[in-house]
């Protein structure tokens, strides 16, 4: 399926499910955003990061604690 078709389905359906209104301009912007973001998001979701446990309340002013 074309990316644009996916956006045509995903964005209006998602907005409708949340009760968010959108005009044609909103939909055009969101469609372009979706085409830009979604392939990268799918790639991100496909990364095997199961071994990486997020730091609990990381202190971003310091290096992470090493095992």
């Amino acid at each position, binding site marked *: 399926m074309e990316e644009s078709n996916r956006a045509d389905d995903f964005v209006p359906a998602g907005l409708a499910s949340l*009760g*968010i209104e959108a005009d044609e301009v909103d939909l055009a*912007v969101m469609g372009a955003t979706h085409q830009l973001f979604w392939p990268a*998001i799918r790639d991100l979701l496909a990364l095997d990061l199961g071994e990486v446990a997020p730091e609990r309340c*990381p202190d971003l*002013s310091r290096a*992470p604690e090493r095992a």
Partner: protein
Amino acid sequence: MSALDLTLRGQAAAIAAGDADPGELLEAALARIEQRNPAVNAIVETFPEHSRAMLAAAPAGPLHGVPVVIKDEWPLPWRAQRFGAAEMFKPTAPGESGPFRALRDAGAVIVGVANMHELGSSSTGNVSVYGPARNPWNTERCPGGSSSGPAAAVAARLVAGAVGADGIGSIRFPAAYCGLTGLKPTFSRSAMAGHHMAAISTTIVSGPLCADAADCRLLASALFAEALAPGDAAGLRIGVVRDTVSEDVAPEVREACEAAIEALRAETGGEVREIELADIEPAALATVLIANTEGLGGVSPERLNQLSPDLGPINRGFLKYRMLLPAAASVQAYRIRTLMRHRLAAAFDEVDVIAWPTVPAVAPPLEAPVVEIPSGMLTADQANVRGAGLANLTGIPSASVPVGLSSDQMPIALQLQAAWGRDELLLDAAEALERANGRRWVDALAPLAQAEATEA
């Protein structure tokens, strides 16, 4: 030469020595804003009576009597921030923000509020409720965002120092586009109180934009509430990464940055080491996801249905699209954060700084902010985020330093990144690079400032 054309530290020293009158300097800054600002739209509001009152009450601090500007991202006691937008999600009110207090306590005088990209949402600066700020090197080009006004103000020499904010490169992009030095401090090291995201954000910091590193050191010292001691960066170990951030860049940007890295190595008597740093692109996306979802608390569909019609169409659409981002992607983003923090910690065992181009191409046109790089035509935001997000994602400090001009006379910049808390080292390295280049690029004046300086 007007005292206003001195560096930030030069102005402070001249005032301290009695060689410049701070009252005259303030009036000169206000006059220059009136004269030059229409061409660059860097300053969106001045308030001479408040500025004069600040000067009258200014303590004998390191910036006593020195005029500066602050991005439209923090409240002042007499003005609420507008974030460059027709409306914000949270109500704003005048108040004493952290950066305001830091500047006041250092003796500085805030002469104006600087423009910014609407809601801080882009690296270009081409959208603002006030109209876009313009790049003093070419007023048809983007000044960079989101700290567009701070950069344009310093590059036009309206003032010598400006306070910006950096959530995904928003100090470094405009510093790069406008030929300035900009520091994104280590997370939480600089004043942030009063920012509407201060209690929520894990990416945004305040930081300085100035002509050179020594001025950034002075202004950062005020924002950090601690003096940043200078060093010499001797024996600097410079890490380079053979990845898209250093290779998928315009040829003349790559050439200038590679020359700068070699010049920095030679000046410091250091070495250049290739390092592995995988997953930089997913890290950039992770930064975007985290930065754009942290503020979603309290954002309801009902609220989104009441957005001001005066908000720009891109932000209207993107604010709504954020609600559709999958939670699983956010979980992955936080895992990427952990992964990259550990990878960087390991990398900084091997090198002192990591260097790559701040942006892969010079400032694009305001009307069409797209850039051409080896992989094709991309929006500037797409291209720029790749090299900038890592510092915000992981908390490390990062600086953008000017290293050349393109064939069409637009600034080229190198980004230096160091380990957590080593902000001083970045400035040491930037100063070493300035020495290596004979200060050629930090002293270069934008044509707009240059032409008017000659006329004056």
